[in-house]
């Protein structure tokens, strides 16, 4: 599992960490049943506060993506690829909407750039 964080970004770290784990899951880097690193280990190597990681894990647990259990740590419960399908569906919807307006490729890309 690989996650990338933007240190100077205005997005809070725990949001980025949760997004990183969701991304790893969507890319298939994580499988259902696999164990995430212990919050303490991740906090140590990321050089962030333990509670930042705990908050990210709690959010993922609330979304039903992982299971937090005493002694077993954080386990992935969602199937690999979760989230990817949703992004793909929305991308298709976006392209459909753009086509209906006769919006060309270049304009659509520029629009997406604006939002990013």
């Amino acid at each position, binding site marked *: *599992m*690989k*996650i*990338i*964080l*933007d*240190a*100077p970004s205005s997005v809070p770290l725990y949001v980025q960490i949760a997004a*990183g784990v969701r991304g790893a899951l969507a890319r298939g880097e994580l499988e259902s049943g696999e*164990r*995430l*690193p*212990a919050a303490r*280990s*991740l906090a*140590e*190597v*990321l*050089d962030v506060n333990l509670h930042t990681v705990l908050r990210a894990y709690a959010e993922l647990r609330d979304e039903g993506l992982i299971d937090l259990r005493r002694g077993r740590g954080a386990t992935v419960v969602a199937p690999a690829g979760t989230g990817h399908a949703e992004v793909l569906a929305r991308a298709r919807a976006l392209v459909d909407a753009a086509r209906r307006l006769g919006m060309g490729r270049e304009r659509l890309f520029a629009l997406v750039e604006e939002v990013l």
Partner: protein
Amino acid sequence: MRRRLLALAPAALVAVAIVPWALGWARLPDPVATHWAFDGTPDGSTPRVVAVLLAVVPAVFGWVALARLAIRDDAAPGTVAPVAGVTALLATLFAGTAPLTVLANLDAVAAGAAAGVGPLAVVGLIAPALLAGLAAARCARVLERPASDVDARDLPSAGLLVGQTAAWAGEGNARWPLLLAAAGAVAVVATLLAGESGVVWGGLLLASTVTVGLSRVEVVVGAGGLRAALGPFGWPVVRLTREQISHAEAIEVVPAQWGGWGYRGSLRLFGRAAIVLRGGPGLKVSTVDERILVVTVEDPQGAAGVLNDLVGASAPTGG
């Protein structure tokens, strides 16, 4: 200086092996007691000459072997220190039997009348051997040539941009340690039921427990460095801080090249450690003071890429 020490110090082993026998010869029975039961009473003997050779021959061999090692100049990193260590350990172990055996048999009428050798004496035999092994290994490290420079362009990179940080988590798994530990557990029960001494089944129990720890290793790397945790309890842990790390690579681990399976070597003593759970892909981390840590994990490329970007070893990408 270390080289000279490695070549000359083992002469002391030969002295330790010969002098007690020479001094005590007239006062020793023949055969002499050379094996003792757990409770300390002698229960085995060999002719005097054999017992002398048992101490002297390994001591001489050890001296010659270490002296030969000491004249080398260009050994591959990590090959000489363990060999020197094991040679010194074995030679000291055998040489050490001389004072022990002579003392126990001194003025005894026959082998059966020799003094008891208790567990404390065994410690006196093993401790110097371990120390000698460690000392030899440390001396021998100077004989190894430094690790070759790696081209930054060949190092894996995660493509991190300026201002970004990243973490990688992965693991290595193996099934054989669990099978081995299960066999060990069966052996523990068997020796318990057979009424064997606590040393036997206690030792088996310890060995089986330690073996379970080799079934899994969890590795996490990031801006804080590297953290490798062994076994189901996540202990012991090997740590390297970001400041200690020079660069990282993904390699193909052949267990034979790293001393076999399990936790091989020691970062502190030999400058090289390898956590080898299985042959195959592994992460190799080099420190700034030229020590090496190898861990068999899945996707070592990902781990190496993140590490190299974070320590600045790979060619930097613009932001």
